[in-house]
């Protein structure tokens, strides 16, 4: 075993920060679309795709460094999540399930994709959309609540339930007649919004993979990404939060005429923030290594990484608040607002039974040796 850090790791992190180039997305849908497209074009989307297909052919660890660097450079984790949903969830799915038609424009950032976060929960979450056969295609009706890049994407990757209950994955034109993005307040808004589909007509070629096989073909890809690479968005955001918290601890102006860092509560909070971050980072690094080298272990071990964050993010944010006091830095406000998204998909309701099944052999699952 080897815990050395690759020399290219810091370079990839800088590259991720460089993809953002110090920009902050504007408030309008058009400005947000331009921003995601630009950051994606700067390398955030092509990282994992093989060189022969126009990508950079990097492994999960290198891509994870890039994404955490990117997320550390974007104040709002939801904006980084929007880039990652396009660059990982949509792009990796199109690549692995062999969609050559839409992939090239996605890789270059000319087109961007939308996806509901709960698709990663597979059959544990109701699909919300039905698919009925028509003459030469399908008619899709229903709604999705947690669609990342809603209203600004070109393509919409979604699953829908057929008449027999089986699920099929579709990639449809996000501007098709019958698609409506709703504007609601809530976690992740405006990047994440509900989308309604009212008798949307799509051709047969909108099917991604095998008809009726989304749960076995698409869901394992999305679940694996949620338990590994997608976590690097949170890792990068929390690393920057820890650094901002550390700097705040040195500042004057706390109670009793002492800097915040003289308060033992604040110091202990900072220690806890650093500790949980270090532990979470180790679990993420293991998951990234497994993504390439031992994907069969990722089901349980990736779930452990995701679960660890779910279990301890409240402590981490409370600790940052203990130091920041009533005037938190912008990063803390953004992370506090985004944290509920960790319960939308791949939350403890999912990761706990997945892990328990791998440990006990119950739940229709096999015991994984790695969980012992």
């Amino acid at each position, binding site marked *: 075993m080897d815990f050395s850090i690759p020399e290219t790791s810091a370079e990839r992190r800088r590259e991720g920060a460089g993809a953002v180039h110090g920009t902050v997305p504007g408030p309008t849908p058009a400005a947000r679309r331009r921003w995601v497209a630009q950051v994606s074009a700067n390398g955030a989307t092509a990282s994992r795709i093989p060189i022969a297909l126009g990508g950079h052919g990097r492994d999960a660890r290198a891509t994870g460094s890039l994404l955490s660097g990117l997320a550390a450079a974007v104040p709002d984790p939801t904006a980084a999540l929007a880039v990652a949903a396009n660059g990982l969830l949509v792009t990796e799915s199109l690549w692995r399930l062999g969609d050559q038609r839409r992939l090239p424009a996605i890789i270059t950032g000319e087109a961007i994709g939308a996806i509901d976060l709960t698709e990663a929960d597979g059959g544990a979450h109701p699909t919300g959309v039905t698919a009925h056969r028509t003459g030469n295609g399908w008619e899709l009706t229903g709604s999705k609540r947690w669609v990342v890049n809603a209203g600004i994407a070109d393509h919409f990757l979604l699953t829908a339930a057929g008449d027999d209950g089986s699920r099929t994955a579709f990639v449809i034109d996000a501007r098709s007649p019958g698609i409506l993005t709703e504007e609601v307040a809530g976690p992740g808004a405006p990047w994440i919004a509900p989308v309604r589909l009212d008798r949307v007509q799509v051709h047969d070629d909108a099917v991604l993979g095998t008809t009726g096989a989304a749960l076995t073909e698409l869901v394992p890809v999305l679940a694996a990404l949620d338990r590994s690479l997608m976590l690097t968005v949170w890792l990068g955001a929390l690393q920057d939060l820890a650094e901002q918290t550390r700097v705040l601890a040195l500042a004057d102006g706390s109670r009793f005429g002492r800097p915040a860092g003289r308060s033992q509560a604040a110091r202990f909070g900072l220690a806890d923030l650093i500790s949980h971050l270090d532990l979470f980072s180790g679990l993420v690094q293991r998951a990234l290594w497994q993504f390439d080298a031992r994907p069969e272990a990722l089901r349980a071990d990736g779930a452990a990484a995701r679960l660890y964050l779910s279990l301890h993010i409240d402590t981490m944010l409370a600790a940052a608040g203990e130091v920041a006091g009533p005037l938190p830095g912008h990063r803390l406000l953004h992370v506090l607002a985004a944290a509920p998204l960790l319960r939308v998909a791949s939350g403890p309701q999912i990761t706990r039974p997945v892990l*328990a099944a791998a440990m006990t052999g119950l739940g229709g699952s096999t015991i994984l040796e790695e969980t012992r």
Partner: protein
Amino acid sequence: MNLRSDAVGEALLAGLENDLLPVAARAAEADRTAALPGENWDEIRESGYLRLFHPAALGGAGIDGVLQARAMEVLARACGGTYWSATMSTLLAGKLVTAYGDPAGKHRHLIDGVLSGERKACFAVVEPTSGSDPGTYRTRVRRSGAGYLISGTKAKITNAPDADLAVILARLDEGWCFAFVDLRQPGVSRFTTPTLGLKAMPWGGFTLDDVPVEAQDVVPVPYTEFARGMAWGWLFISVSSIATAENALAAAVRHATVHESWGRPLAHLETVGSQLADSRAEIDAVRLLAWETSWHRTQGRDVTGRVATLKITATETAVRVLNRAVQIHGAQALVSGSDLERWYRDAPMNVIGGFASNRLRELVAEQAGVGHVPYEPFDWLQGTGLELDLVATASPLVGVSR
């Protein structure tokens, strides 16, 4: 990170586990009698465990840090008290001799004795009056002829009741030193202190009354070296916690899959599965950090801050895991003499032993660059108005009250 293990390492761990089966079989009895069985030490010596943490040039096994941490976990899972005694001797005390002494020359005989198991060593810091406040330490080394004499009392020391060799933190002139002291000589009187857990571990202290120490065995050190040296201890204490937690989790999984309630094994209950899952995630996290810090440390890097982080989280994780295991076992956990009871008493020992979490959180904050906070008298409320009670006063206004 590369988590692929090699066949040689796996064979070493399997062999060690096999060699230590008798130690594991005696763990309950050792706890009940609060004594380390003599056979345990013989089997530890024969297993080669005491050589695992040192380079080949010093007669060690020369293995990497991850394998060292995994080997520690094998012994710690077999018997926590035996693990503490053996690892305190070879890892903590042994590393202090190699780091601050002259292991290839003047102190080679000490290293040889510790690695072969002929000598058992301890690290003596704390004194009866206080914990980690060095201001209270009185033990002093003073010159006498060509050598030194050492006097004082050390307490709450692992292996103090039966150690042959002590690495002692003592005052020397205006500063500090590590003294390598042979405890098998006149002027040394020992005492044993009963413990809450890890009961097979010899624990107690000794009083030194003008005990001679050779000049070459007194090494002046700045006090800050103390924490750096202790980092080896934090690592092995963390692994002790990981092993205790893993034992408890394995027992909980066994119980949950075998014990039936409402017609089905307990593990069908959502909460039971969740508690197993939470424990799995938390143990994995601290074990990975233990492997990583052990790996870096054996590569020669100073990772004191991260080992402090590990000590806090691993030891507190074990207490949480034990509590969950007790919940899952229900009333069975309340029966005296069970393995679970032993681990339940062992777990908090690690939270406090070798620096309590409170002290280590301070150290992590210091390492993060927010400075050192001297202990100040608690007088901050003075003059703020917040120290005052509401008192009856006559309002200058008329007719407003009631």
